[in-house]
């Protein structure tokens, strides 16, 4: 019982990082109707990039976040047309084929990562990971590590930035229009192709950035992608595909589940629980907890 | 007076806060052509979906040949003799025209050879025999609409729901389709037809039912309906073709 507040706090902060991944992922789905199976791999690539950059340039990884964003958003920007081609070309079921394509992509990336980075786990060292805050309330004692707090702040900042982007810029208007009605938006002059490219770039950039953060809070390995893909799916499905407003709640649920398992149960069970829950949700309510997603 | 083949009784359909159909009732005699008209959004396709089993009504019941079919799924109704076309034509794109129809023929002819034979008969009836082995997706719009009707006919229905089978066709194609519809009726099949093109639906229907905002506002012969002030008001501003 003493551990409960700590578990809760940890869970919330973990959840915060998941929000970002899920929002970006959900945005891409909403506009391009693509479920990117490789989302976890972007996170993994970002985390390793952060790891090696810190090693070479000797700058704290948290200051490197913008650089990682730039690298991966550019990558995503130029990769997007390939994905687009899959979507428009296939005769049978473009959405499913896009899923298969990104699935193949994720295999490739994972294989590449194993080749280049080996099988070891690492942790990205950061000045912030050595610092913590302590809160003492009566008999409850909570440690808040600086990195996790940074994660929370990061989540708030990025969410705010995305919100601003979507609601107050022309680009964002175009994105929302495309999400609602592709053809009408195109007729009104929204450049579908370039908007998709930028959007995908933002998504890969954000995912990679979040990978760096995860690397400072938790650990990284070449195989970690699969787990984070599951986490992204979980959050987005629970929130409702394409329903961005449901993401924060769903992300916190995941964060809480994880930290509860870490504290009270065998962490190995976490994945069974998450997989099992994901399956159950898809079966009971594919449109999400709030029933507002696309089923 | 013979028992009506179709009886729609006080059917309403709500989608959350939106009422698509509001207390709609009407009957159809066997062998007649009933036209369903109304401004856009009046609920015509919703009504079709209720009758053909895609939606269950929120309130009310539907009887077909004296049996309650409310809430029965579409595939059960196909067996009972109800066929329909879709407003947005949906052929099985990856298959040939013949294969599209054979699939429908399986309902009455479980054996492949018989199904194929019957499919060929339908192709001749609807005039698509020359394009039997062509991929369905490469048909023109007129061909696709014709394929829609062919698939429904292959079910050997006694009742046919036609949803905008003439819209989008040029005058020549439209006339050929009208003739096809007449041929279908001559086979003894009862038809409920939705169409926006006034000259078509006025010309082909024995009677009309008019919907507006989900409610039935008029029913009668084309002449009666055309003179009905409520109908004129509902269509105010719309051009008559």
């Amino acid at each position, binding site marked *: 019982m003493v551990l409960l507040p700590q578990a809760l706090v940890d869970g919330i902060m973990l959840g915060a990082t998941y929000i970002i991944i899920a929002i970006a992922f959900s945005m891409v789905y909403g506009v391009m109707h693509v479920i990117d199976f490789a989302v976890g791999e972007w996170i993994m690539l970002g985390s390793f990039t952060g790891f090696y950059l810190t090693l070479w340039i000797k700058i704290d990884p948290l200051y490197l976040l913008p650089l990682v964003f730039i690298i991966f958003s550019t990558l995503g920007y130029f990769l997007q047309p390939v994905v687009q081609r899959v979507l428009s070309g296939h005769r049978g*079921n473009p959405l*499913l084929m896009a899923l298969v394509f990104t699935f193949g992509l994720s295999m490739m990336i994972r294989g590449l990562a194993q080749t280049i980075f080996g099988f070891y786990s690492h942790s990205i060292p950061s000045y912030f990971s050595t610092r913590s805050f302590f809160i003492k309330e009566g008999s409850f004692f909570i440690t808040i590590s600086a990195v996790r707090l940074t994660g929370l702040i990061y989540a708030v900042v990025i969410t705010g930035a995305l919100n601003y982007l979507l609601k107050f810029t022309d680009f964002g208007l175009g994105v929302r229009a495309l999400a609602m009605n592709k053809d009408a938006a195109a007729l009104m002059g929204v450049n579908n192709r370039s908007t998709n490219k930028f959007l995908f770039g933002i998504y890969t950039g954000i995912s990679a950035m979040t990978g760096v953060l995860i690397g400072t809070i938790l650990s990284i390995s070449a195989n970690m992608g699969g787990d984070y893909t599951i986490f992204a799916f979980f959050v987005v499905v629970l929130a409702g595909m394409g329903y961005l407003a449901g993401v924060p709640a769903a992300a916190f649920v995941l964060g809480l589940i994880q930290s509860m398992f870490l504290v009270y149960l065998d962490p190995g069970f976490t994945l069974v629980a998450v997989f099992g829950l994901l399956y159950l949700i898809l079966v009971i309510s594919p449109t999400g907890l709030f029933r507002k997603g696309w089923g | 007076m013979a028992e009506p083949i179709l009886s729609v009784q006080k059917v309403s359909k709500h989608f959350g806060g939106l009422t698509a159909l509001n207390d709609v009732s009407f009957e159809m005699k066997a062998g007649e052509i009933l036209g369903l008209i109304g401004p856009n959004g009046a609920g015509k396709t919703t009504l079709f979906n209720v009758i053909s089993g895609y939606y269950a009504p929120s309130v009310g019941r539907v009887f077909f040949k004296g049996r309650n079919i409310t809430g029965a799924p579409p595939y059960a109704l196909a067996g009972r003799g109800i066929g329909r076309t879709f407003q947005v034509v949906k052929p099985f794109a990856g298959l040939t025209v013949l294969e599209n129809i054979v699939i429908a023929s399986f309902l009455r002819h479980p054996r492949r050879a018989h199904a194929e034979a019957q499919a060929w008969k339908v192709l001749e009836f609807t005039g698509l025999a020359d394009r039997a082995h062509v991929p369905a997706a490469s048909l023109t719009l007129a061909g696709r609409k014709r394929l829609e009707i062919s698939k429904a006919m*292959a079910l050997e229905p006694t009742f046919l729901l036609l949803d905008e089978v003439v819209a989008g066709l040029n005058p020549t194609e439209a006339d050929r389709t009208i003739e096809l519809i007449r041929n279908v009726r001559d086979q003894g099949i009862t038809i409920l037809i939705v169409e926006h093109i006034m000259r078509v639906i006025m010309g082909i229907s024995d009677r009309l039912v008019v919907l507006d905002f989900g409610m039935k506002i008029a029913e009668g012969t084309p002449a009666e309906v055309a003179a009905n002030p409520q109908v004129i008001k509902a269509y105010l501003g719309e051009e008559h073709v």
Partner: protein
Amino acid sequence: MLIPLTKDRRLLVFLGIFLAVLLLPFVVHDAFFIRLFTEAAMWIGLSLAFDVLAGYTGYLNFGHSAFFGIGAYTTGLLMMKSNWPFYLALPVSALTATLAALIIGFPTLRLRGAYFSIATWALARAILQGIMMIPYAGGNEGIQLKAYLNPLFFFYVMSGLVGVTFFVLWFLLERAPFGLKLKAIREDQESAKALGLNPTKLKMQAFIMSAIPTALIGGIFAYWVTFIDPASTVGDLISDQALVMVVFGGMGTLIGPVIGAIIIFAFKTLFWAYLSAYEVLYLIILGAVIAISVVFLPDGVLGAAFRKGTGRHAKGSIHVTTPSPEKEA
């Protein structure tokens, strides 16, 4: 497509090939090659089973390995813990697979294609983790069966099963109405309903048809390699490779998956023979093959060779891709 005469001729060709395969051990005596062909047969069978659901019905079961594992563990546990003979234990695998298909399929087949794939993928991983935690099933270490070293026996059992599977599926999917009905569901489920087809029933039938051969192959695999553990049976590699083989070969044709299986398996064997030092490369290449096949070979190798031009449709074609807010009935 609907020309019976050509099909009958093709069937004779298939029968001829099958007979030739069965006569193989009279020509090739090396046990190594016998084992090789046994494994090739295994992958052909897995790909065929995968294609029933993938190519004909349009549902990609990313958790396909779950059935393989269920079959392997059913036969393995019955033989090892309860001392059942092989020929009695194997059919039980078919039963458990059918049961599993019913339980798994009933809720998931209602979902749309992409969601189904994610759901089955997640479920397979959950089963994998789950098996690792059951002591009765040997947990992480797996179970060891009594060895029966007779390569010829397994060659004939595997080839026989796969051959029978092929002919049964060929009949059901290419000759009987069932195949066309599945394709109708694949192309447009809502439209198919209006033609008297019950999508749920048909999808479930296809699912079971996909599960049974896979489980039986898994059962034979268990007895053949005498040692099974979660990773080798329920792990990703089974599903992934079946996926590659079918997508690369050509979905929805039965012949495509056979060709895809043979080519990919040949590649895999050569790779492990000469490049095993670079084992991580294998994953990269598999992924690349999937990605490239999706982009450049939408109908697979078979489609590229035989059907130039009928694959692509004009823009503005019928298939509606906008997600609809309603769940399928």
